[in-house]
C-alpha cells in the first residue's frame, strides 16, 4: 500500500473516531460477556476442583473409605486394614430424638464416631471443647447436636434428650463437621455421639438401617488407589464400596463439571451472538457513515483510501 494513502487513511480514522463507538455497544458487550463467562467459569471450576482435592481427605474422612450398608466389616477384613494404616469406624442412621419428657420428637441424622474420629480436620463445637471430652461416656452419655435440633425440641446445651432407650446429655452445638459433604438437603439435623452411645440406645438390631464407614489413614496417601485395587482383589465378595481420597465428593465434582459445561456453552453462545453482532455492528456503523463516504467520494477521495480508512476503523474497534 502507498504510504501516503496509509497516512491519509490514519488521519481520517483519527478524525472519524471522534464520533465514538456508537453502534458497537452490543457487540462489545457480547464479546465481553462471552470471554468473561468462559474465562471466569473455567478458572472458578478449576479453583473449586483444586480446593476440593486439597481438602479431599478431610471431606472423605480418611485416605480410603470403605462403606457398607446394614452390616459391619468382618473381623478378617478389619484386621487386614489395621495392618495398612490407622482405622476409624463411623456409623450413621436416621432416627428420632425426643426431649426428656417425650413431648417433642425430631428426625435426626445420627452419627456415631469412635475415639480417633476425625482423622483430618476438626469438629467445630460451641462451647469450645474437644470432641473426646464432649462425647465422653464415663459418667453419662454425651452428644453433640446441630443448633436446629435445640430449637425444634425446645432444649438447650446441658439438657437431656432421649434416643431409643438411652438418655444423652447435650454437651455442645456442632458448628462444622469436616467430613460432611455438600448435599442438596438433609432429612434432619445432626446428632453425634460415640459408638458406645449408639449401642446403648438399643437401636442396633439385626436389619437396622445403619451405614458403616471405615476410614483408613495411610502413611502415604498416594498409595490409596493401589490399596483400593488390592482390597478389591483380596476381598472380591465383600460387597463394600471403596473410595479413595481422589474420589471424594463425586457429586460435587459432577455438579462442577456440569456447571462448567453449561456455563461454557452460555459463554460460547454469547460469543456467537457477539460474532453475529460484529456484522450487525459493522453494517450499522458503515450505514451511519455512508453520507461521509459519499461526501468524500464527491471530493475526489480515491476508493482505496476510503476502503483503507474504514477497514482500519473496523479493525481498530474489533481490537478494543
Amino acid at each position, binding site marked *: 500500500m502507498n504510504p501516503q494513502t496509509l497516512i491519509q487513511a490514519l488521519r481520517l480514522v483519527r478524525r472519524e473516531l471522534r464520533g465514538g463507538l456508537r453502534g458497537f455497544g452490543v457487540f462489545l458487550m457480547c464479546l465481553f460477556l462471552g470471554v468473561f463467562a468462559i474465562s471466569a467459569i473455567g478458572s472458578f471450576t478449576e479453583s473449586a476442583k483444586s480446593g476440593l482435592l486439597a481438602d479431599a481427605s478431610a471431606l472423605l474422612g480418611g485416605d480410603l473409605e470403605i462403606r457398607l450398608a446394614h452390616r459391619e466389616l468382618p473381623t478378617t477384613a478389619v484386621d487386614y486394614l489395621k495392618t495398612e494404616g490407622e482405622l476409624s469406624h463411623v456409623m450413621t442412621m436416621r432416627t428420632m430424638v425426643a426431649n426428656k419428657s417425650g413431648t417433642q420428637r425430631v428426625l435426626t441424622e445420627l452419627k456415631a464416631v469412635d475415639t480417633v474420629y476425625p482423622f483430618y480436620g476438626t469438629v467445630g463445637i460451641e462451647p469450645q471443647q474437644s470432641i473426646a471430652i464432649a462425647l465422653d461416656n464415663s459418667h453419662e452419655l454425651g452428644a453433640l447436636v446441630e443448633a436446629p435440633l435445640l430449637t425444634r425440641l425446645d432444649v438447650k446445651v446441658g439438657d437431656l434428650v432421649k434416643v431409643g432407650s438411652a438418655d444423652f446429655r447435650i454437651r455442645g452445638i456442632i458448628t462444622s463437621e469436616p467430613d460432611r459433604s455438600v448435599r442438596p438437603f438433609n432429612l434432619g439435623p445432626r446428632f453425634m455421639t460415640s459408638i458406645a452411645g449408639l449401642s446403648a440406645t438399643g437401636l442396633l438390631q439385626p436389619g437396622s438401617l445403619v451405614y458403616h464407614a471405615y476410614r483408613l489413614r495411610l502413611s502415604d496417601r498416594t498409595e490409596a488407589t493401589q490399596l483400593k485395587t488390592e482390597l478389591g482383589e483380596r476381598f472380591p465378595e465383600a460387597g463394600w464400596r471403596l473410595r479413595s481420597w481422589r474420589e471424594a465428593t463425586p457429586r460435587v465434582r459432577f455438579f462442577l463439571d456440569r456447571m462448567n459445561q453449561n456455563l461454557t456453552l452460555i459463554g460460547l453462545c454469547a460469543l456467537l451472538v457477539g460474532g453475529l453482532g460484529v456484522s450487525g455492528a459493522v453494517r450499522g456503523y458503515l450505514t451511519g457513515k455512508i453520507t461521509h463516504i459519499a461526501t468524500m467520494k464527491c*471530493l*475526489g477521495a480515491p476508493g482505496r483510501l476510503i476502503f483503507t480508512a474504514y477497514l482500519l476503523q473496523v479493525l481498530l474497534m474489533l481490537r478494543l
Partner: protein
Amino acid sequence: MIEIKNLHLSLVGGAGPVNILRGVHLNVAGGETISIVGPSGAGKTTLLMALSGLEKPTSGSVKVAGIDLTTLNEDELARFRREHVGIVFQSFHLIPTMTALENVALPLEFAGIRNSEEQAKAALEKTGLGDRIEHFPGELSGGEQQRVALARAFVVKPSLLLADEPTGNLDRETGKMVMNLLFDLQEEHNTTLILVTHDEMLASRCHRSVHMIDGQLKELPGDIA
C-alpha cells in the same frame, strides 16, 4: 468546457429500470454560469452526478474540460473530481467529526497538497469564517456551514462548480448572502458554474437558464447575460 451529447441515464430500481435522463444535449463555455430549473424528479441532480462522474451514463457522452468521463475508471474519475470539480450541496454535507478547517482541507489532502491547512485557512478567511476554523459543523449555523462548504468547493480552484440547490436549507437573507459569496468566488476564479435551483431570482443571476423536464433540457428564452 462542458459538452454533453445525447445523454441517457437509467437507474434500476425495485420496480424495474427508470429512465431519468432521456437524451440531454448541453454545451457550456468556460467561465459560463448556467442555472438548471425544473420540477422535482425531472433529473436535475442526476445530471449533476453525471457531470461529476458519480453516475455512469447509460449512453451518450459527457466531456468536461476535454475529458470524456465515459472512458474513465473509478480512480481516474476520483482524480478528475479532485482536479476539476467543486460541489456544493443543499444539505451542506460537512463531515460532523471534523472541524471547519479539516473539512475544507479535505480535498486538498486527497490531492496530496502539502500546505493544505494554510490554504484551507485562507479559503475560510475569504468566506468570513477565519475565527471559526476550529468549530465543528454542529457548532455552526446553517449559513456558516454552507460558507464552509463553499470554501471547501473553491479551495481546489476547480474549473467547474456544481451547486445543487445551495440555498434550499437557508432563509432568504442568509441564502442571498451565501449566493453573493458564491458568485463572487465564481467570478474571482472564473469557474464554470452549473446551478440547480428552484429559485427563479437566483436562476436569473446566471448567464443563461435551462429547463429540465422529463429528463430533457430545454433552453429558456432570453439569456440573462
